[in-house]
C-alpha cells in the first residue's frame, strides 16, 4: 500500500512580521520602513503571526511526518513554538530589525537546505521577495496576511493554506499549477490609481478537493491541455488581424508554437502567425488599433480570476474602449476555472464603463475546439 505512505517532507516557514500593518490603519500597503513606522504610530497591530498560527495549528497533528525549518524570532520561530513545533532555525542578521532582505536571504537558505515547499505569511510584497530568492524552483503556499493580495500564490484563507500543505505532506503525489506574482505600485495606489505589475510565476499545489485522490498521472496532465488550447487559438487566427498575446503560460505557449520566445510577463504582438513587436506598452497598442483590428488573447489570474486590471495594465481602459468584446479571446486551463469554485471571472480596469461593457458572459477556450461560457463581473 505504497500509495498511502508519502515520503518525509521538509517545509520552510517564513512570516513577514509587518505584513498587513498598513491596511488596518488605511495606509493601503506596508512596503517600506517609513510606512511601517507610520502604521505602528497609528496603532496598527501585526496580525501575520495570528494568521500563520491558524495555519500551523492545522499542521500540528501531522508533525511527525515532516520537519519544519523556520526563520528566527518574529519571522516564524515564535509562532511555530507557540503552536508546539520545535523547528530548525535560520537566524536573522540584524534582528530585532527585520526587512525584505531577511525574507530573501532566508528563502535562499531554505532552497540550499533542500526544503520541499515554503509556507509563508504576508502579502504581495512578501511573495515578490520570495520569488526573487527562489524563482520557480520549489513550490510555495502563501497565507494571506497582507493588505494587498493580488498574487495567485495565496490560498483563500489561513485554513485553506493549512489544508493545502497538509495534503502536500500526507500525499505522495500532488498536482501543481503556475500562479502569478502580481504586485501593486503602492505609490500610485495611495494616489488613487491602481497600477499592478506581473513579476513572474511560482508553483503552488493544486486545490485537492477538485482532483480525484489517486488519479494523478505521471505526466503533468496540463501540458498537453496547454498545447491543445494554443493549437485551437492558432487554428482560428486570420492573416489581417493583429493579436496581442498577454502574459501567462498559454499565451507563452502560443508564442512557442509560432516560433518565438514570448516576453514572460509582457505583451507581444503577432500578425500572420509571426511576431511583429515585443513587450509593447499602452501607447503602442493604441497606435495599432488606429489602423488595424486588434484581438486580445488573455488568461485569467489564478484563484481570483481577473481578466483585466491585474498584471496586464497595458490593456488599459483607453485600449479596451476600442476593442470589441468578441475580439477578446480568453484562454484558460479548465482546472483554473474549476478552481474559482463557481465565482465569476472579474474585471477591474479602473473605468466603470469599460468594466460594464465586459460584464455578462464570455467564451473561454479550454481545449482543442472546446469552449465554455462563463460569467464575468466587475
Amino acid at each position, binding site marked *: *500500500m505504497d*500509495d*498511502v505512505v508519502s515520503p518525509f517532507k521538509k517545509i520552510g516557514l517564513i512570516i513577514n512580521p509587518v505584513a498587513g500593518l498598513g491596511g488596518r490603519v488605511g495606509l493601503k500597503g506596508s512596503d517600506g520602513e517609513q510606512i511601517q513606522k507610520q502604521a505602528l504610530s497609528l496603532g496598527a497591530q501585526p496580525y501575520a503571526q495570528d494568521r500563520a498560527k491558524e495555519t500551523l495549528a492545522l499542521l500540528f497533528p501531522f508533525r511527525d511526518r515532516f520537519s519544519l525549518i523556520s526563520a528566527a524570532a518574529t519571522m516564524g520561530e515564535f509562532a511555530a513554538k507557540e503552536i508546539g513545533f520545535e523547528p530548525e532555525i535560520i537566524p536573522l542578521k540584524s534582528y530585532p530589525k527585520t526587512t525584505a532582505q531577511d525574507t530573501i536571504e532566508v528563502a535562499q537558505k531554505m532552497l540550499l537546505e533542500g526544503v520541499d515547499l515554503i509556507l509563508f505569511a504576508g502579502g504581495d510584497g512578501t511573495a515578490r521577495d520570495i520569488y526573487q530568492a527562489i524563482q520557480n524552483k520549489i513550490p510555495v503556499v502563501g497565507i494571506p496576511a497582507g493588505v494587498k493580495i493580488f498574487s495567485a500564490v495565496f490560498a483563500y484563507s489561513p*485554513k485553506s493554506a493549512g*489544508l493545502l500543505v*497538509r*495534503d502536500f505532506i*500526507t500525499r505522495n503525489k500532488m498536482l501543481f499549477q503556475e500562479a502569478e506574482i502580481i504586485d501593486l505600485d503602492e505609490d500610485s495606489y495611495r494616489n488613487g490609481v491602481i497600477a499592478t505589475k506581473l513579476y513572474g510565476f511560482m508553483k503552488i499545489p493544486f486545490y*485537492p*478537493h*477538485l*482532483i*480525484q*485522490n*489517486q*488519479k*494523478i*498521472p*505521471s*505526466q503533468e*496532465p496540463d501540458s498537453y491541455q496547454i498545447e491543445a488550447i494554443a493549437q485551437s487559438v492558432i487554428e482560428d487566427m486570420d492573416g489581417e488581424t493583429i493579436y496581442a498575446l498577454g502574459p501567462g503560460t498559454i499565451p507563452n505557449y502560443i508564442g512557442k508554437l509560432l516560433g518565438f520566445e514570448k516576453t514572460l510577463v509582457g505583451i507581444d504582438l503577432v500578425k500572420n502567425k509571426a511576431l511583429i513587436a515585443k513587450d509593447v506598452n499602452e501607447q503602442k497598442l493604441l497606435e495599432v488599433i488606429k489602423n488595424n483590428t486588434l484581438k486580445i488573447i488573455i488568461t485569467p489570474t489564478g484563484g481570483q480570476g481577473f481578466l483585466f486590471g491585474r498584471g496586464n495594465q497595458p490593456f488599459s481602459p483607453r485600449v479596451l474602449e476600442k476593442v470589441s468584446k468578441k475580439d477578446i479571446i480568453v484562454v484558460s486551463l*479548465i*482546472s483554473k*476555472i*474549476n478552481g474559482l*469554485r*463557481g465565482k465569476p471571472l472579474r474585471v477591474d480596469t479602473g473605468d466603470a464603463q469599460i468594466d460594464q461593457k465586459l460584464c*455578462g*458572459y*464570455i*467564451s473561454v477556450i*479550454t481545449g482543442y*475546439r*472546446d*469552449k*465554455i*461560457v*462563463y*460569467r464575468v463581473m466587475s
Partner: protein
Amino acid sequence: MIEVIQPKPKLRRFHQARWDEPIIFELSQPGQRGVIPPAVEEGIKNRVGDVLQTLPKNLRRSIPPQLPELSQIHVLRHYVRLSQENLGVDLNIDVGQGTCTMKYSPKVNDQLSRSTKIQDLHPLQDENSVQGILEIMYRLEEIFKEISGMDRFTLQPGAGSAAIYTNVAMIRAYHAYHGNSQRDEVITTIFSHPSNAACAKTAGYKVITLYPDENGYPDLDALKEAVSERTAALLITNPEDTGIFNPQIDQFVKVVHEAGGLCSYDQANANGILGITRARDAGFDLCHFNLHKTFSTPHGCGGPAAGVCGVTNELAPFLPVPTVEFDGKKYYFDYDRPLSIGKVRPFYGVAQNLLKAYAWIMSLGGDGLREVAEIAVLNNNYLMKKILEIPGVSIPYSLDNPRIEQIRYSWEQLSEDTGVHSEEIGYRAADFGTHYWTSHHPYIVPEPMTLEPTESYSKEDLDEYAAIIKNIVEEAYRDADFIHGAPYNSTVHRIHQESFDDPQSWAVTWRAYKRKSGQTK
C-alpha cells in the same frame, strides 16, 4: 430446545472472497482438454478428404492459436472464483452509482430473452420467418413514441453513447441536407452527461459548455452568449447529474431554435420523469433513452446494452436503416431511405434487450411507468434526509429547486475536518460489500458523491446504505488514518490508476502483456 438465533449486526461484517486466482493463461497445462471430440470415422474421412485444404489459404493459420489448455472443471472453477471476487448488481445495494444506478431487472425477463424462441433466431433469416420479434420492435417503437412524444424511433444503437452519437450524426446530416454545413458548434452543459460533449467532438463538432449559476443550471443569458449562426445543436440532460431539473428548458429550446439549431434531449436516465414530462412537449427535435438505465436491461459493461433514438418527422428521413414498418398485414424492414445516415450497428439492434425492455414496460403499463418515477423521486428524497443527518456533508446549489431522482453531494467539510477524501469513502464502502461513486471528471463539486436510489431499492436498503456511510464518516472523524488504509475486507485493495493514462502500461491481451512486460519480443 434449540438456541434462539441472535439478530445479525446492523452493519454487515462483510468479507470478500480472495482466491489469488491466476490469469487463465497461467493455469494452462500442455495437453489438458475440456472436450475431446470423437475421431472422424474412416468412411467419412475417405469421403470428405482433408477439410482444411478446402479452406482458402489466407484463412488458414500457419501457427496454431496460443489458447490456454484446461479441463472443464478448471475453467468452471476459475470463473466462479472470479465472480466471487467481484461486486455485482445482484449482490449489493447499488445506489452509490448515481447518474446510472442499475435498478433491479426481473429475472423473468432474462428467462424470456433466453427462450429458444429468441435464442435460435438469426438476423439473416427472411423477415417472413421473424414476424414475432419484428412485431415486438414495432410495438416498442410505438411505446417510445408515446413516452417521449416523438414521431419516429430507431432501436438500432448498441448503447447509450451510441444513441447520442446516432443523434449527432442525424443532426449533421440534417444541416448538410439543408445546406447549413457551416454550423459546426454544439452546445452542452457541464452537468449534462459527458457523452454529449464526447459524441459531438467525435463527430467533428466544436463544443461549447455552459456552466451553472447558483441555482445549479445555466442562466438563459449564458446560452444566448453561446448561440450563433454556427450553432448546430444543443445536447442537454435534464434533470442534470446534480438531480436539478432546469425549469427554463422550454426557453432554452426556443433560443436555440431561433438561432437555427436543433435540440437533442439526453434522456439516458429518464427515471425521474417517466410519465411526467416529455421531450417533445418541451420542443425538442431529438431524444434518446438508455434501455439499460431506465428500462431494466443489462448495462453495457454487464452485457450488450441498447439505446433508442427518437426524432420528429423533420428528422425522420435521416434515421438509420432499416426501420421496421407494418403494412397492415406484415412487418418488414424498410431500407429504401435515401437520406438515412446508414447503419450504426450490424443488423437491427440488440434483439434480446429490446425484448426485455418490452416485457418490463408491458408488465408495468402507463400508470406503472409514472409510478416508477414517483417512487424513484420519493426514494431519493428519503435518502437525502438520511444523508443530511451525517456530519461533514452538504448539497451544493440552491435547495429551492427540489432534487429529482439523484443528488450530487459534497464532502468538502469532512475533507477539511479530517483529511479524508470522497474517493476514500468509496474504498471503505467496499468493506461493507457495497459500491460508491464520486462523479465524472473534472470535479466541479468539491469532494463529490452521487447517490441515486431508483425505484427498486426498499426503505430498508436505503437505511442500510445510509448507515454504512454514517459509520464511515464517524470512523473518519475518529481515526482518519484508518480510512486512509481502507479497504481491509476486499479482494483488491488499491489500484494504481496512474497507469490508466499511460498507453505504454496498457495490455488488453495476453500477447500484449507478454510483449510489453519484456517476456517476449
